[in-house]
């Protein structure tokens, strides 16, 4: 059965479907606050999230996340290239970077709230302060690992500094940079949610927290499911984009391994 494509797909779907069915069945008669019937969760999803709260909460959340993530990646790559290309600066700054990235990102929240205040700016700042590190470190790593022969070739053919960085260094470092961006994605999502749970009047995190505070357990679960779906979609989107942009890398790797 494993051999057939349909068989494989069926096997993969078996566990999730079974789990959902189990969930439905065990929760259907439940009156416990923390374990509402799945049917009510579905109702809550339909009423609130299709499509009423999309505009009021989903959009602001995703906007903040996108801005923060973009800033984190931009800063991380730019700084990473500068530091990666300057060995002395790199040696000087690595211990500091390693320490700063070890601070649990959610603990940057008090700093950001207290210094910047409540509002979108502090949330975006938090996302940047947490998500920049993997991008920065991976960019530095990737830039360092560029093949010196490629740089020799570039210099021999008269490529100036800018072109060398743009056409040789960055593409060569891109596999590592993309790996860092993937890690940064998860961190960014976590920080977006946390910041909305602590200091916000809208957003996914806020919705889920206020549902919990008003003991709307079905609404709480519904909110968590929406967050889960957002996480899934964002991750999937990233994988798709990565597959396209890094096609050359997979092709080249396959040849090396052959």
């Amino acid at each position, binding site marked *: 059965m*494993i051999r057939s494509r349909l068989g494989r797909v069926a096997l993969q779907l078996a566990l999730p479907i079974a789990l959902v069915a189990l969930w439905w069945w065990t929760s259907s008669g439940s009156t416990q606050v923390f374990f509402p019937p799945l049917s009510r969760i579905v109702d809550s999803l339909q009423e609130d999230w299709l499509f009423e709260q999309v505009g009021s909460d989903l959009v602001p959340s995703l906007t903040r996340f996108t801005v923060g993530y973009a800033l984190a990646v931009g800063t991380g790559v730019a700084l990473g290239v500068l530091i990666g290309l300057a060995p002395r600066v790199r040696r000087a700054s690595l211990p500091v970077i390693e320490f700063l990235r070890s601070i649990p990102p959610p603990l940057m929240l008090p700093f950001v709230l*207290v210094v910047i205040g409540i509002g979108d700016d502090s949330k975006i700042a938090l996302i940047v302060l947490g998500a920049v590190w993997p991008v920065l470190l991976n960019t530095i790593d990737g830039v360092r690992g560029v093949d010196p022969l490629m740089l020799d070739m570039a210099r021999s053919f008269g490529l100036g500094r800018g072109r060398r960085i743009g056409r040789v260094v960055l593409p060569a470092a891109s596999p590592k940079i993309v790996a860092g961006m993937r890690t940064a994605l998860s961190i960014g999502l976590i920080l977006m949610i946390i910041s909305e749970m602590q200091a916000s009047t809208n957003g996914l995190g806020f919705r889920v927290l206020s549902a919990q505070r008003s003991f709307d357990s079905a609404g709480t679960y519904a909110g968590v499911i929406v967050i889960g779906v957002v996480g899934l979609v964002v991750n999937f989107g990233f994988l798709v984009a990565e597959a396209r942009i890094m096609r050359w890398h997979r092709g080249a790797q396959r040849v090396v391994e052959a």
Partner: protein
Amino acid sequence: MPFQFRRQAEAIVLPVLGVAVVLAAFELAPRVGILPRATFPPLSESARALGDLVRTGDLWQPLLETLDSWVRAMVIATLIGVPLGLAIGASRWGRLLTGLTIDFLRPIPSVALIPILVLVYGTSPTLKVTLAVFGATFPLVFQASYGITDVDPVAKDTARAFGMGPFTRLWRIVLPSCAPYLATGLRISASIALILVVTGEYVVGLPGLGREVLIAQSSAAYDRMYALIMAAGLLGVAVNLAFAAVERRVLFWHPSQREAA
């Protein structure tokens, strides 16, 4: 000769210089006005507050509470994640059956579960442990399953040819071969678990370093707040270094694959 000397000197001087520059920046920025002094005291004041915490013993209780939850979470995550990962990785059935489910559960940001956990646990510290277990189990499952697929089949066949039973093989061949992957998994999980424990303390107000930060923040004792954040950072560094050291020892003979960041 002078060339060598300069190299070695640089290896020490440069990092020290880098740290010194950053420390100086954090000391001067509030004094000069780049950072608001009211909400970001100069580094020396926060450092003093940290010293006070250590001296008066106020640091240790919350630290122990955090560590207690962290240890519990690590033990549970390991006991669940490693066997699960080994089982999944060992068979094609395992991977096919669980792959989709894991791919769905993995991208869920662990912190999103906090409201549900509050409904279930209220203000019990067990909330922290459960949260941390959720986040820390995945890396272990993955690393264990990679590790077991990487075991050299020739080694296994040789062991079987020599009459080793399945449990002996597990103990003597499979687990040692997986060890580097498990070590990497433990390092990653340890970090995640610590972060989630502290986050739970901060967001929900459970006993530990995180709650101390929240208390300091609410009472505007900002030097103390930053001191506690630094303490958490140092704890994170310590955990990371410790597990990285173990990982390196286990890894030294094995050409394994590692995560970049």
